[in-house]
């Protein structure tokens, strides 16, 4: 049943060696009054019946809906090599590489991952992954508070609302988090700059932001640095193929959700969070870090390094409580980036941009629909509809299309705004159909 191997004969032999009369005797240290009062679970089943149950649940999972939705999680291509290689059991049935000599596969892969993420974000140091995009925002804020010794974090309200909720929970007892409302769909850089003061540990923005707007953050970085604060940028990694990196714009810490890099949407996970920074802040990074070294014969190898920051050594003084991270998802990210390669990744980003711009131009032609973003966008944009966006979305869902994320649920007063996502996987036919359905819905 439980994949247990011992035969009744072997069990008898083992009990004899132990000197116990029965397996139950081994549980004697547990006082009788502490024994389970109930354990009411159905009888087990075989693989065959299990898959019937699981297929039934998966069939009612909305996988056939055409998604023009994102909210931080995006439907991108995943090269076949990603599943096959990350599906090698030598990777997925191993654990944290505590014994480096027999874990060089995982360690070198994570070193290569750290390199890829640094290059993507334009930064100098990366850890081996965090849990997801939301917790990465929170870890970055805590890191900035450690570096600066300050406890105020200025938050752009056009950062993904789900990430902002996670941040508020993490910081509830630890910091003050004033939020700066966006101007329309764009980060209000003027007000963000004005909100930074001598008590500010960091200012947190997202690029592109929740509404799809892309901004140049160089001036914000300069202002933050002038007052001794750090700039934290949450990055949608596919955008890095086309948009200037946060590092070039002056960011001190870059984070984001790595899901788009080779991980399926999977109803919420697993994904991975990434975090990169300047080399001088490396000792304040949370989580595992892989470093290069040599063995006693001078041969290059990789180990977990700076472990004195971590909970298993520092306990309550650690930089974070994180232990297990999302290693396998980060590996998928690395394989994805390697399989596409330098040109392929840039082409993928361009294609996302082209498709979104095409959709944007089509939707903007519909009577009563206008684009709200004032400037450039990347693969997401926000349109204002003549009526309530939530009602329109519900209507289009009946036709098998998720038209976008209504902004009103997160931004009171924006009930007519719809955030539309278009990845490279949305075909021209699907985009055309979205426009037709939307036009029909608005006319009727």
């Amino acid at each position, binding site marked *: 049943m*439980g994949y247990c*191997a011992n035969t009744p004969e072997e069990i008898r032999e083992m009990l004899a060696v132990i000197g116990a009369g029965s*397996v139950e005797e081994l549980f004697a240290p*547990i006082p009788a009054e502490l*024994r389970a009062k109930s*354990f009411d*679970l159905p009888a087990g089943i075989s693989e065959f019946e299990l898959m019937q149950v*699981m297929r039934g*649940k*998966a069939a009612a*999972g*909305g996988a056939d*809906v055409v*998604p023009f939705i994102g909210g*931080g*999680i995006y*439907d991108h291509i995943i090269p076949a090599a990603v599943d096959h290689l990350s599906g*090698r*059991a*030598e*990777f*997925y049935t191993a654990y*944290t590489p505590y*014994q480096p000599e*027999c*874990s060089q*596969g995982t360690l*070198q892969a994570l070193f290569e991952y750290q390199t890829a993420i640094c290059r993507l974000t334009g930064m*100098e140091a*990366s850890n081996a992954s965090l849990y997801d995009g*939301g*917790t990465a925002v929170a870890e970055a804020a805590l890191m900035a508070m450690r570096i600066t010794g300050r406890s105020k974090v200025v938050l752009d309200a056009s950062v993904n609302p789900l*990430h902002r909720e996670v941040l508020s*929970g993490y910081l509830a*007892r630890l910091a003050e988090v004033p939020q700066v409302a966006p101007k329309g769909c764009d980060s209000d850089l003027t007000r963000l700059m004005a909100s930074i003061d001598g008590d500010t540990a960091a200012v947190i923005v997202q690029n592109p932001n929740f509404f799809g707007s892309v901004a140049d953050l160089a001036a914000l970085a300069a202002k933050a640095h002038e007052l001794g604060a750090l700039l934290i940028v949450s990055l949608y990694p596919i955008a890095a193929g*086309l948009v200037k990196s946060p590092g070039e714009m002056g960011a001190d810490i870059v984070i984001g959700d790595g899901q788009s890099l080779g991980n399926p*949407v*999977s109803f919420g996970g*697993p*994904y*991975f969070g990434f975090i990169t920074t300047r*080399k001088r802040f490396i000792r304040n990074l949370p989580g595992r870090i892989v*470093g*290069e070294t040599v*063995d006693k014969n001078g*041969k290059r190898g*990789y180990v977990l390094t700076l472990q004195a920051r*971590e*909970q298993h050594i520092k306990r309550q003084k*650690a930089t974070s*409580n994180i*232990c*297990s991270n*999302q290693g396998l998802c980060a590996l998928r990210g690395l394989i994805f980036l390697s399989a596409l390669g330098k*040109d*392929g*990744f840039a082409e993928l980003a361009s*294609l996302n941009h*082209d498709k979104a711009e095409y959709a944007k131009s089509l939707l903007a032609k519909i009577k009563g629909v206008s684009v709200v973003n004032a400037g450039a966008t990347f693969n997401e944009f926000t349109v204002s509809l003549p009526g309530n966006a939530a009602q329109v979305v519900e209507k289009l869902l009946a036709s098998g299309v*998720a038209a976008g994320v209504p902004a009103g649920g997160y931004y009171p007063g924006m009930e007519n705004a719809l955030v539309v996502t278009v990845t490279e996987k949305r075909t021209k036919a699907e985009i055309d159909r979205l426009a037709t359905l939307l036009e029909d819905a608005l006319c009727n």
Partner: protein
Amino acid sequence: MQLIYEKSVPGRKGVRTPIPDVPKAAPLAADLRREAPVALPEVSELDVVRHFTGLSRRNFSVDTNFYPLGSCTMKYNAKIMENAGSLFADCHPMLSLLPGGENLVQGPLSLIHGLEQQLAEITGMDEVTTQPLAGAHGEMTGIMVIAAYHKARGEKRKYVIVPDSSHGTNPASAAMAGYEIVTIPTAPYGDMDLDAYRAAMSSEVAAVMMTCPNTLGLFNPHVAEICAIAHEAGALTYYDGANLNAIMGKVRPGDVGFDVIHVNLHKTFGTPHGGGGPGSGPVGVKKGLIPYLPTPRVAKKADGSFGVEAHPEGIGRVSDFFGNFAIMARAFAYITMLGGEGLIEVSEQAVLNANYMAARLKGEYELPYDMTCMHECVFSASRQLKYGVHAIDVAKYLIDRGYHPPTVYFPLNVKEAIMIEPTETESKQTMDAFIEVMLEAAQVAKTNPEALHEAPLTTPVGRLDETRAARMLQVCCE
């Protein structure tokens, strides 16, 4: 082995991207545009396949080697769970939050609800959230729930108590939730010192965090009393489920007096460890704490359908959606497949295997707490010290003989600790072969200790210079 970047050749192409079927858009403005493409490798798909296949062969793993890494429960990960988990790859979580979207995702929502109910029954808790993404994340969530409970009662408590044998994540998680830590020493009988604990308990203590069986693999017979002492002072009790694999169907933390628990789906419920995650750390609570669970909650409606509900009094959101769903799907599959009897067998065989290991090895290795253990046993290499041999030397010798070493130097309260957790999925035959090598290592320690210091010799690299790594801090290739 070369890095993938070192295999790069300018102009070499990898996987083809979709064929453009829309007009090319105008380029971004210069101040927003990346000047040069990201310096990713330029390699063929076959290069990628050979590279990562090559890397995979430089790993020990459960599928290739016995992996008795104590405290990590490295059991066999059934292949069918991979099939089950991947069925949901194309289900977008945002659908569940759209108006009218719930109806389209009844399958995954019913799975989450089903898993929560399974875990509640297994642990004796009243409700469970699957949002936490790993064990440590579960701990932090649980302590945040406890903080919200005290706050709602207008109480300001500032301490969390942990035993010195606890996992490092316990104090780190409580500290992240804003608490100061009080550490209690281990008594000679192998458990938290009861007198020291009693003395530390006060109306300023928010919670005590316990791992039971503890990290020595011992079941604390005073655990109910520990809970009662906390409750008397108005503090709550936290159960770290890291070692739940030992007691399924035998003890339920909820029955014993624990208020909050987390479980590790990647340990007890057979989901793979992924080379360092993804894990999953659902949290269960007793009735009085349900209001403080994170938002949103998956709820079963009167008509039998499932919905996503805001949970306004709760601690907020601890991860973006409902947790590491594809990992949860694997755990749901595991529990459903094994059933109640199967889970009981798991714990019984895990405990049998660990006691067999203890009985066979204690002749040559010091067993500081020589009593019936649960799912793991902790030795010390103290007898080998007189030959200049340390726990790490025994560990490296095992690598040469094809075994992943046990956990060494943890728990911190055992000198030269060697922590062995065979798990239930290993056979007597596998363990006997491992035991022979452990006994052989003890002999080599006496006769030729230098051979142990030299190990490992069969791996792609020998012992690595960790000091140099920390000094050079080369964490990505230039």
